[in-house]
Each structure stands twice: as C-alpha cells, then as structure tokens.
C-alpha cells in the first residue's frame, strides 16, 4: 500500500522528531539518567509490590483448593470407636474424603518434623488425640455450607473440637486485599510523582530552548510543531523509566527467588516466585509511556504559551 505523500511526510517527520528527541537525551546522559532513574524507582516500587501480592494470592489459591476440616476426637475414644466413626462419616454425601490419623501416627509425624523427639520421650503417654481429616466435596466449598457441615460435625459426641481450616485462608486473603489496595494508593501517588518529575524536566528543557522556540514561532511554526519534540522527550523518559523499573523488579525477584524456593521446600511446596509476565511488562511500559507523555503535556501546555517572540 502506498501512502499519500502528505501522510508520508507527516509520519516521516514524526519519526525524525522522535529520534531527534532521543538523541537529545543521549547527548545529555547524566541528566537523562537521573530523571530516568527517579522515574524507574518510582515505578518499580508499586510494580514490585504488585507482583509480590500476586504471588501471595497464587499461594493462597493453592491452599484454597485444599479446604479441609479437622476433627479432634475426645481422649477417651478408642481406636475402634474412631474407626467406626470414620466409617459412618464416609457415608455422608458432603464428605469426599476422610483420613484417620491415629494418635500414634500423629506422634510419629510430630516427632519427625518438630525435632522435639527427645522431649516427647519424657512424656508418659501420648498427649495427641486421634484426628479425622476431612475433605468436603467441592460443592461445599462456599463458606455458609461449609459452616453448616462444621456445625453438624461439632454436635457429634465423639468430637472434642472441629476446625475449619478455611478460616485463616480467608483472613490471609483479606489481608492481601488490604495490601493490594494500599499498593494502588501508593501507585497513584508515585504515578503523580512521575508526572511531576517529567513535567519539571520538560519545563527545564523548554526554558533551555527558549530562543529556539521563539525563532521557530517567528518563522511560522504551529504550536503542534513546537510541542512535538517535548512530548516525545516525555514519552522517552516514561518508557526508559518503565524499562528500568521492569529491570529493577526482575533483579529484585531474582534475588528473592533462591530464599523463597528454600522456604517453599521447607513447607514441601513446589511454589516458585512468578516474575513479571510479558503482559505485565507491557502494561508497565504502557503506564510509563502514558505518564511521561501526560507529564510533558502538562508542562508544555503551561509553559509554551508563555513564550512569545517579541
């Protein structure tokens, strides 16, 4: 497809101005780097936290699927009685799976994992009760029906304590929610900071190029023409800042990945930190570009009109 000549010239001009603005940043590397670094850090902070909470949420959904109930049985209950109860409960339609953990099994597991083996030897008898670990059918995963099941189980005479393990997952999710909301607040504030930083940088650039602006106005440049290089500068600052932010976040997560893997290993989980996805990286770039552009726009619309050739 061949573009009409005027469109072609227009696009070519845009490319030229864009490259020109980029060249200008390149020729003043220290100043450009400072601005880019500030923008990068301002963007890296909320994006890093955002990715982190995303990981926390992923972690909690892993647990969510494993919603389970624990029935701690009375001490007086014999193993036979416990097995009879287990058999009875397996008939309930709400229960998908039931495992009996005998006091001996519980003790062995505890001994193995806690490292208090020697201390346990001091005890005369096994203090641990028998436990029925129940996995309800998935249709009961919602809170109210799970609570109803819990109530029914509590009323069984053999049961000392029935505990819904979903509770703390919910609390955890609520906390993540709050953290996430705070991150959005933080992101808004830091986004505003990016606007101000680019705005101020562009304002200085406008002042430095005052003579040039006056001359181009004198020989018939439109406002759009004069505005263009400054808007591209803002765009480049935003993009470079976002790129730096992505780099910082990746580096930070690379640093964290080892310890996290170790911790996950201790919990026998195969959990891995998820880094910036391509879509998220793209979103970050877009956000940086838009913030830079808008910051430049604000500066340009405030300060360009004030410069009139006399």
């Amino acid at each position, binding site marked *: 497809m061949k573009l009409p000549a005027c469109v072609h010239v227009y696009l070519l001009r845009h490319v030229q101005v864009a490259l020109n603005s980029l060249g200008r940043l390149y020729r003043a590397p220290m100043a450009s780097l400072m601005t880019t670094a500030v923008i990068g850090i301002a963007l890296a902070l909320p994006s890093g936290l955002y990715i982190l909470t995303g990981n926390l949420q992923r972690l909690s959904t892993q647990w969510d699927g494993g919603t389970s109930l624990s029935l701690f049985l009375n001490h007086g209950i014999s193993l036979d009685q416990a097995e009879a109860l287990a058999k009875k409960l397996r008939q309930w339609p709400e229960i998908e799976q039931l495992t009996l953990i005998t006091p001996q099994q519980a003790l062995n597991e505890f001994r193995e994992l806690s490292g208090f083996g020697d201390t346990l030897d001091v005890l005369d008898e096994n203090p641990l009760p028998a436990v029925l670990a129940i996995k309800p059918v998935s249709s009961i995963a919602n809170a109210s029906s799970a609570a109803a099941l819990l109530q029914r189980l509590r009323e069984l005479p053999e049961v000392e304590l029935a505990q819904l393990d979903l509770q703390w997952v919910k609390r955890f999710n609520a906390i993540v929610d709050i953290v996430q909301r705070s991150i959005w607040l933080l992101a808004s504030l830091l986004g505003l900071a990016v606007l101000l930083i680019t705005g101020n940088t562009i304002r200085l650039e406008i002042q430095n190029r005052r*003579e040039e602006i006056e001359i181009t106005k004198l020989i018939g*440049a439109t406002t759009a*023409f004069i505005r263009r290089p400054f808007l591209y500068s803002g765009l480049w600052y935003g993009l470079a800042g976002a790129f730096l932010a992505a780099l910082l976040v990746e580096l930070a997560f690379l640093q964290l990945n080892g310890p996290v893997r170790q911790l996950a290993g201790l919990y026998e989980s195969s959990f891995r930190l998820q880094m910036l996805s391509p879509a998220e990286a793209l979103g970050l770039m877009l956000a940086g570009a838009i913030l830079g552009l808008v910051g430049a726009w604000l500066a340009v619309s405030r300060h360009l009109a004030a410069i009139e050739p*006399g």
Partner: protein
Amino acid sequence: MIRFDNVSKRYPEGRDALQAVSFHLPAGAMAFLTGHSGAGKSTLLKLIALLERSTRGQLFLDGENLSRTRSRKVPFVRRKIGMIFQNYRLLFDRTVFDNVALPLVIAGHRHQDIGRRVRAALDKVGLLDKERALPITLSGGEQQRVGIARAVVNKPPLLLADEPTGNLDPELSRDIMHLFEEFNRVGVTVLIASHDLELISRLGYPQLQLHQGRLLNPEVLEMA
C-alpha cells in the same frame, strides 16, 4: 501587499507607539521605513508579522484582514513573510543548512525538496560552501546572509527586515542591500526598517518616515 488603515498601537503601559498610520505598499514594491529609534519602526513591522496586535484601525496583508486573524492562524500568516533581524536570530547549535531548512521543515516539505531549495537559497546569498558550518564560525555579514537565505527559502511574497545592517560595516551593508534588491527584482515585496540614511538614500527607493508614531509622508508610495 500591505495596507494600513488608520492603525494605532498603544502598549499596555500606555505608550502610543503608532498613531493613525495609513499607507499602501503594492505587491512587488520595495520601500524603506526610516525614523529615529523609538519612532515606531519595529512596532509597525511587528504588527505585520502579528507579533503585536493593533489597538485601532485595520491592516491587510495580501488581502487578508490581519485584525481578524485568529491566533491559531497566525503561523500561516508568518509563513508568507520572510523576516530578517538585526541580530540575525540564528540557531547556534545547528548547521547553516539546518538553519535555512527550518521554514521548510516547519511547513512540512519533502526531504528531497528541502535539500534542493536550501542549496538554491544558499547559492543566492553566496554561502553554498558553508552549509555544513555552524553559524558561530561565520562573520557577521555571513550570518546575516544565512538569515536572509532562511527568510527567502520558502519563497514568501513579502520580506520584512528590521535594521538588517545595524551590526554591519558600510561595505557589508551595501552587499546586503543589493541582495534585497535582487529579490525585489524577481517580484518579492520588500520593506526594510533602517536608520542608515546615507546608504538608503543612495539606493533611491521610497522612504516612509515615521516620527513619534506618526507617518509623515504616506503619499511617497503612491508616487513611486
């Protein structure tokens, strides 16, 4: 080309820079604007280039009523005018070529077009060999010729010059004036503000005389 109809300009601080000025400079004419400093020469030129707006009266450029031009349209009025300044007003961080190319870039000309036209303009002012030079390396006379090349490169119908020889010695001044004559010969309307009376009286073009904001002899253009 230029028509003033009872034009007055009062600056916000209350100074009357021009009072009821009327004249008509026909297309293709060349004239000088004389008077002491402060007589209103610069103000008159600024009104034509819409760097200032008149307080009263009407002025026309190429048939367009400039008193009614919206600010959005001002750049397009200025593209019809080649402006030349006493202090040249060049961009010192760009080459001679880029300086002269600026009006064409602003007007959105094609790349090949720009190279051709810039070289033609530089050729006319005799600076073809300096296109890669930076303005700061040139003499005052050469810098002014770069300014003139920039003013004529997009072939405007009107040239306005504000004390173009104010910073130049007599010989260079004569060269510059001859350049203006050459452009006038090919049909460009030229209006030059100058107080170099000795030089301009030798050239023999009509002189509009301003005195304290009043035009003393508007009829001089009719006789020419």
